[in-house]
Structure formats: structure tokens, C-alpha cells
């Protein structure tokens, strides 16, 4: 239990730091008052709006108010939308999760078998094909893959809609999701495949595997019972954290496919200096990572009994 308590404590420190940094970042560039009312306003208007927005108060007071708000889940009003930030972010987060979860599942379903088969047939043609695929998948930029898919499936074949989040029935909705999910998944899929292959290869040379073989266990049983199970340890950590980056880091995919998700919303808010939204989003991303890391840690202790004792 002390292990989990320690994890929680670390998580809290990370969150505090993330919230503080997001507050500071916002004061580095530009003037939020001008962003809101433009550059043709009179000094009188500028002063009044500055006061309305609470930006005339001392920084330390603004910081205190901001942190107190964060504790209560209140990041203030978006400058652009004049609505509570949290609600705006959560609705976008939902749209991103709709893409991220299937993308991660797809990546897992492909990477585990491909990684294992590739390792088992090391340096044979099938391994070569899998490695090439993984390398290309990791190297190809998201926006390029996205545009190429649109070119092929929307313009030439006319099978899928080019972009947007639409459709009335479930089937239609899925049609809008296919290309973005695949594009988003590709990098993670390639990354996890390489990781799985590497882990399996490393474990296959270990003593306990040799022992298992010497005991006369079938190769299949050695692979699934001993090798793959142990390989899952680092795999779970990485794929859990990948979910975080799939949700928060999908700006490019969301832009290419006009998907109204979290990443694109964050990008627009940064461009338009919507400070409360950017600060709220950064803090929310930190929360998400801390929660994911915590869940991964818990799963880890379940998979590896040694950790429970320390």
C-alpha cells in the first residue's frame, strides 16, 4: 500500500507543477486584452476590459485565484467562447477519446501478434516485412498519411467521406471514423510492434526460457506461458501512456480530418491566446497522464508480484 501512497504523492506534485507552469507560460507572449478587443480600442476600453478580466490585480493574487480555481475544477471562462473552460474541454475530450480508444485497441491487436511472429521468425522474410512496415509506420508523418488516405478512399474510390464527424446511423458514423482512427493508430501500432518484437527477442535468450525448454515444454507453451507474459510488463506501461498521447497529441490528425477534438481545440486556443483554455488543457493533460500512470502502476503490481513486496 505504501507503494501506491507514494505514487499518489508523486502524482500530486506533478499536478501542482503542471498547473503552475501553465499559469506562468501564459504570461510570456502577448496581451490577452488586445487579443479580445483588437488593436483599435481606446485606452479607456482597454483598462476597463483588463479590470473585468481580473488582469489588473497583482500576479501573485491572480496565481492564488487560478490555483484555487484549479482545485475546484474551475479554470474560469474561455475568452473566446465566454463559457466555463472545463465543460468546453470535456466535450472535446470526449470526441478525442472516440478516436483514441479504437486507435489504441487496433494498435494492440496488430502489434502483439505481429511483434511475436516477427521475433519468432527473426531475419526471415516475414520478419523483414514486419520490420519494414513498423519502420515506415513510425517514419511516415501523420498529415501525409492522412492526406494520402483521403486521396485514395475519398477522391479516387469514393468509399469514405473526406472529413468531418457526421452521420446519422452507427454505420455512417463509423465511416467517418475509419480513416482518422487508422491514421492516428499507425504510429502507436508501429512503435508497439517494434517494442514487442524487441522484448520477445531479449527474453528468448534468458536463462529461465532455456530452463523451460530444457524441461521439455513445447515451444508454443514456452512462448505464450513464459516469454509473452513477461514481455507484457513493459508493453503495458508503454501502451497505457500511449493512450495519453493519442488523446492529447492528435492535433494533426484532427486538423487533417476536421475532427472537433481536444488537440485541435488546444491548437486553436493557443493560436488565439485563449489563456484559460490553454491553462486548463495543460492541467487536464497532466491529470490524465498522472491517472494513466497510476493505473499502469497498479496493473504492473498485479502482473509482477515482486513489486508488491518492495
Amino acid at each position, binding site marked *: 500500500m505504501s507503494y501506491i501512497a507514494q505514487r499518489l504523492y508523486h502524482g500530486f506534485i506533478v499536478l501542482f507543477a503542471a498547473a503552475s507552469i501553465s499559469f506562468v507560460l501564459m504570461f510570456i*507572449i502577448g496581451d490577452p486584452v488586445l487579443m479580445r478587443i483588437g488593436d483599435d480600442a481606446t485606452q479607456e476600453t482597454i483598462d476597463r476590459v483588463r479590470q473585468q478580466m481580473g488582469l489588473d490585480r497583482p500576479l501573485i493574487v491572480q496565481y492564488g485565484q487560478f490555483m484555487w480555481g484549479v482545485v475546484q475544477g474551475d479554470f474560469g471562462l474561455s475568452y473566446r467562447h465566454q463559457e466555463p473552460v472545463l465543460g468546453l474541454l470535456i466535450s472535446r475530450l470526449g470526441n478525442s477519446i472516440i478516436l483514441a480508444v479504437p486507435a489504441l485497441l487496433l494498435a494492440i491487436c496488430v502489434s502483439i501478434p505481429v511483434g511475436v511472429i516477427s521475433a519468432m521468425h527473426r531475419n526471415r522474410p516475414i520478419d523483414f516485412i514486419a520490420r519494414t512496415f513498423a519502420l515506415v509506420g513510425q517514419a511516415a508523418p501523420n498529415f501525409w498519411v492522412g492526406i494520402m488516405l483521403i486521396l485514395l478512399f475519398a477522391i479516387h474510390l469514393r468509399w469514405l467521406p473526406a472529413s468531418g464527424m457526421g452521420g446519422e446511423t452507427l454505420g455512417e458514423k463509423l465511416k467517418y471514423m475509419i480513416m482518422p482512427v487508422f491514421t492516428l493508430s499507425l504510429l502507436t501500432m508501429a512503435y508497439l510492434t517494434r517494442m514487442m518484437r524487441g522484448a520477445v527477442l531479449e527474453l528468448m535468450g534468458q536463462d529461465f526460457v532455456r530452463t523451460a525448454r530444457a524441461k521439455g515444454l513445447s515451444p508454443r507453451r514456452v512462448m505464450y506461458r513464459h516469454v509473452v507474459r513477461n514481455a507484457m510488463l513493459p508493453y503495458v506501461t508503454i501502451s497505457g501512456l500511449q493512450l495519453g498521447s493519442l488523446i492529447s497529441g492528435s492535433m494533426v490528425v484532427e486538423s487533417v480530418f476536421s475532427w472537433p477534438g481536444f488537440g485541435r481545440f488546444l491548437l486553436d486556443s493557443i493560436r488565439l491566446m485563449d489563456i484559460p483554455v490553454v491553462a486548463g488543457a495543460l492541467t487536464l493533460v497532466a491529470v490524465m497522464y498522472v491517472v494513466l500512470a497510476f493505473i499502469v502502476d497498479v496493473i504492473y503490481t498485479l502482473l509482477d508480484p515482486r513489486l508488491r513486496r518492495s
Partner: protein
Amino acid sequence: MLATSWEPIDDLTWELTLREGVTFHNGAPFNAEAVKFSIERPHHPDFETGDKIIDVPISHVDIIDDYTVHIVTHEPVPILPQRLSRNGAFILEPGHYSELSQQESSRMPVGTGPFKLVEWVRDQRIVMERNEDYWGPMPNFDRLVYRVIPEPATMLAEVLTGGVDIAPVSPSNAEDVRAAEGVDLIVGDSLVRAVLIVNVNLHEAFNDPRVLQAMQWAIDTQALIDAFALGEAEQAVTMVNPPNHNPNLEPYGYDPDKARELLAEAGYPDGFTVELDVLHPDAFDWAEAAAFYLTEVGINISQVNMLSRPVWLPRNVEGTLNLHAHHWSAGENTPETDMWATHPDRPSNSTNWFNQEWYDLYAELVRTVDQDRRTEINHRMQEILHAEGGPWLTQFRVPLFRAISDRVAHYYPHPSFLVEDFAQIRLVE
């Protein structure tokens, strides 16, 4: 148009006759009451945002009868009709807008136009339905959907696959659109100017008109237009758009030798070095080319900086930008709103340029109602700008490129860029 006539009856009063038989989207009648409410609204002290988008010193509005109003101002406003027809100067339904807060009503607009708002899903789409009670000619389709597509390549794909019927395209995609089947390219004129702006405080050389003239002669503006606007624009002489421009003035041509001569005369035979800031992403390509032309005659552009809006806004107000490239237009097409760009009293005037005669003429122009005298002042002011060479250089109006599907007819982009006339669009069977 909701007004059928507009006449000044003295220096401070305009009489407007309103169209009869018009109703708002919620069924309420459009009348003098609504006009009075809408025009006076931003001038009430408790108006929430304080934003007076129609920059007019309104005193009050008198209701003469249901369809006649007198708009009374504190000072003469010869361009009141233009001010009242710009984006943002909308007539609002008094009942709806006094019940709701400004925040709520901004999401549920009620007007008199050909389409009414049905659904607004932020960052995705705005859905509008035909207003069956519209007073003008009716569009022959029921729904109009705006879609938000941030990526230009995706937008192009949507046009080519029939996902959208009308979309803006960049000049670099124009050829693809022309070549595609089922889609046409149309080019519209705009009020937006591509302009190279001189901050005269940046370098002492800029205080000498000969240096500004040299910069004008140094840049081949026609070549920029051919390359970056596909030849679909004309070089402008000053910041005043037609029909208010002075037709007797000729734009500076391309003559690098003359530019070098003028620089030498001004005492800069070896030129000097400055930086160039780009304020609008679409301006970057032509600005880089312009920097090359300036460097050729000795005005060495050491760096071209692409600045984002949060970065340049405060520097624009402080007047600390370098030489800068921008795309800009006033909300109205009048000489005073165009020339306000370089007026010393304008908070966002980034030029620091000053000319006493021009300044005095401006003060006279904004109070002069007589058309002939206005033209005289306006043309003289443009002569001054032209003779000084700056502070605005190398200008052309940015053409609007649109891809439209073959099933859409009679669509034309509005030159102001800020509003669209959707009532004119017809679907072809």
C-alpha cells in the same frame, strides 16, 4: 436593404425610410422601434461589452412614424449610410435582445435575413434554414450548412468529392480546381489590400520621402501580382479603394536604377539594413519576394519574421514593428475609413508617419457633407500620400479565389470578406 432611402436633413441629422412588411425570424415586425433599439443599444452606459462596432458619435434616434426615423449625431457624419451597412451594424429584434443577456443572445441571433439559425455545433458546423417569410427573392434550397475545415488540403478534397459546394482556395490550389471536373474556380475582387508598411521610426532614413520613393521604384509589384495573385489584381496607388481613389495618380513602376539614384541622393549610396515582419500568413510569400527586390537596390533585409497575432498585436499598438507586410481592409468602403489606417490618432497605426497638411485635411473631410468638396479633399490627401512615397508601399487588392460546385449558380464572394449574400445563390437542377 432594410432602408429604402437615406437623406441628410441637416449636418447632424439623417432621415431613413424603412422597408415595410418585413418581419424578424421570431415573427415580430421590423419597424422604427427596432431601428432605434439597435442603433442606441451600444451607447447605453450599461451595455455589457462596451464594443461600439459602428464607430459613430450617436446622440439618439427619433421615431417619426412606424417606418421613418431620424438619426441624430453629436458631430456631422457624412458616411453614416456606409457605417450602417457594415458588418456588425445589424438591426436586432428588441424583444429577443432585451430579454436575453448579451452572451445568450450572441448564440441565438434573430434577424431579418434569408436564412435563420437552426443549429450551431462549435468548431464543426452551423446549420441554417430558409426563412419562408423573407421579404426579398427567395433562394431555391432549404438548408445552408457552414462547415469548419481547418486544413486547406482537406477542404480541397471536400470540394472535389462534393462534400461541400463552396470553399475558399489558395492561389497555389487554383490550378487544381480549374482542372477538376464538376468544380469551377471563380475570382472575386476584395477590399483587402496586400501592403508593405513602413514604420518611419525604425530607421532615420525613412524620414526622407526620397527613401520611401526609392522603395516604391525598387519593387516590381506587377511581378508579385502575377506570381502570388495569379495576375488577378491591379496595383493600387494609395490605400483608398475604388471608387474613391484619385484616378489622376499613376502607381510607381519598377525601376531599380532610379531607386538606387534616389537612395544615393538621400545620402544612402551604400543602402542600410532593416528587418521585415510578416503579420498575415498569406502575405509571407510575396513579402519574401519583396525583400529580395529591396535587397537588390541596397536596402538589405537581414531577416523576414513570420509573427503570430498574439506577438504582433502589442507591438502594433506600441508602434515598434519593423518594416511589415500585412493584409488589411477597413469595414467600410469610404475614403476616411481607408485613410484612418495611417492616421496618427488611430491606436493601431503602426507607421508613426505624420504630415501636417494631410492631418488637417482629414479633420475637414470627416465633417464635410458636400460631395464635391469631399472629393476635392480626398484627392488632395491621396496626392500627398503618393508624393511622399509612403508610409504604405507596394499595394494590390487581394483577389478572392473560390471553388464552387457546378450545381451552384450566382454565388459571388462579398468584397468585404466579412459578410456573404446567400440570398443570391441558386441551385442548378
